[in-house]
């Protein structure tokens, strides 16, 4: 009895230590004011005056940072642009990942572990190095341009590096496994006799895909999309390395605020709002899953 209760609480404990506690710190930071000090802010809600002092502190909490962020267009443009880039990349990843996962799930049983291995293999090298490698491929005199020139498809090298296109390529490349794996897990366990039953009842393979395979794959599609979308919104490395000066993503804005401006409270505020934005799709996702289970 005791152990079972313990195992139930274990994930919550984990969440408390590694998510809620740091989040509380960030939230507190976002409500304080910047200062020229070390650390560079005026702390609020300190222990110095005990619990009684908190009441006074609460009134002193500053929502100034939040107001500031809504007023400066840089921030909401960053958010919007991040969400847009993440959405487009997620859709692209889905468009590439679905046929890939589908092919893997339909491959001969003996081949599947090998294919799965190939999908996971890139994780064995550093993410940073792989993104760097794309610079070599995408730059003006890079591999891609050389190939296209050699093939006679273009006669001027294309400018891809330091544009949004390079960011899309980077995100799609980096996050593809996160799309493929849940999709594969879903498609692989789909019962093939369902398609036979559909065909038996007069359904062409094309229609059978849309009436049987796709609806049954939706949980996998959703899981894959969230696994790509959520980290992509906050992505920092890829736009920093592959994006251009006009590529606006919230991860970079946050970085600049923190390290260049040394404005910890504002960068914390940016992070808190980012989390709020991301929680919306997560809640939708959970609702859908509950409905799926409850229906």
């Amino acid at each position: 009895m005791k152990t079972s209760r313990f195992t139930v609480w274990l994930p919550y404990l984990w969440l408390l230590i590694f998510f809620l506690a740091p989040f509380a710190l960030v939230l507190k930071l976002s409500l304080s004011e910047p200062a020229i000090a070390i650390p560079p802010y005026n702390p609020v809600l300190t222990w110095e005056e005990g619990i009684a002092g908190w009441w006074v502190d609460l009134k002193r909490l500053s929502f100034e940072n939040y107001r500031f962020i809504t007023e400066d267009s840089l921030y909401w443009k960053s958010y919007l642009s991040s969400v847009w880039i993440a959405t487009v990349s997620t859709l692209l990843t889905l468009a590439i990942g679905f046929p890939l996962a589908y092919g893997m799930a339909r491959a001969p049983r003996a081949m599947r572990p090998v294919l799965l291995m190939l999908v996971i293999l890139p994780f064995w090298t550093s993410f940073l190095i792989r993104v760097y490698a794309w610079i070599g491929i995408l730059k003006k005199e890079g591999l891609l341009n050389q190939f296209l020139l050699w093939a006679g498809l273009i006669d001027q090298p294309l400018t891809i590096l330091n544009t949004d296109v390079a960011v899309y390529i980077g995100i799609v490349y980096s996050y593809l496994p996160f799309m493929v794996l849940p999709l594969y897990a879903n498609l692989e366990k789909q019962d093939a006799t369902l398609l036979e039953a559909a065909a038996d009842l007069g359904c062409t393979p094309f229609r059978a895909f849309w009436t049987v395979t796709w609806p049954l794959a939706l949980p996998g599609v959703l899981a894959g999309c969230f696994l790509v979308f959520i980290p992509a919104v906050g992505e920092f490395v890829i736009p920093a390395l592959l994006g251009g000066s006009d590529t606006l993503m919230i991860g970079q804005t946050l970085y600049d605020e923190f390290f260049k401006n040394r404005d910890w409270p504002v960068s914390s505020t940016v992070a808190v709002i980012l989390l709020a934005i991301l929680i919306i799709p997560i809640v939708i996702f959970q609702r859908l899953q509950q409905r799926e289970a409850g229906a």
Partner: protein
Amino acid sequence: MKGVASFRRDFEPWNDGSARPFIQFDNLTKRYGAVTAVDRLSLDIYEREFFALLGPSGCGKTTLMRVLAGFEEASEGAVYLEGEDLAGRPPYRRPVNMMFQSYALFPHMDVAKNIAFGLKQDGMGKGEITDRVAEMLTLVKMEGFATRKPDQLSGGQRQRVALARSLAKQPRLLLLDEPLGALDRKLREETQFELVDLQERLGITFMIVTHDQEEAMTMADRIAVMDVGQIVQVAPPAEIYERPASRYVADFLGDMNFLPTTITSTKGDLATMEGEDGTVLKALNPHQATIGRNAWFAARPEKFRISRNRPVAACNVLQGEVWDIAYLGDLTIYKVRLGDGTFIKASQLNRDVMADDPITWEEQVWLHADPQTALVLPA
């Protein structure tokens, strides 16, 4: 065959030389790698026939249906539908519906949508679909379950939905792979009745796999008994029961007692033989076993009469001790041990088993079977 009538209707197209088969398996072979699931099988099935496939697990019944439905390609040979080779025709263009052994219900659709699925593919009108779905639900007695998802149903209920879904399109040929196995006896009997009724009303040809021989006997016009990819015998129920072609068929359908013998003389349909202990046995000899050959004397339990006094007969008289008695309600089965240690099962109708002085354990009894009810089967 003499003495064995077809009980249902005047329906015997397989005896009519001019009748054209509806389905024709022509030397069909289906191999999976090294496994030969169907082995040079030839079989004709006629329109409106109710055809039952019987055979042990793994003998190729499902495979045969899957080739017919178009999910598997024949390795050799061909399947014809009304004379037309079906090779290369995809499942969705065959006038055939199959009920899967695993049901294969669509988990994301409720019961009504599952049943409506095939009708929608045909572009049937909405109102008509609703009517047909309701009709099918009534047929399988699942009226209250239209909005349930398959995972909210019991095994028997799922089976009924699968049956309803395959019936809904009212195809020309229905393949049912163990359609009633998960149903209780009463529901099964009712559904059997509905199926036969449906077949008579709509003229659908049925091919059904079942492990329940009683089901096959009551429903089918003909029964085929299969063994490792081949058909051993095809015949109407009474014929296959009364005149099994081999020991395998006799064993598979019902109970049969076997005694090893040597043929001593033949006369007309009958052969006389001698048991190992010299007992004189006489039985029908449809396979024309010749004098001197070893053969089985075969008789079903209900063909034996059991008595305390030696019956007045010149042959088929056996003596032994009652070893075991099984009371089955309508029947009582006596297991009698003969002098040489072999056992004979004899069943008696319980019309008078509750008589004052019933035969009981360890009694010495006599058994007798009429020569016309026993068979000589090849050894």
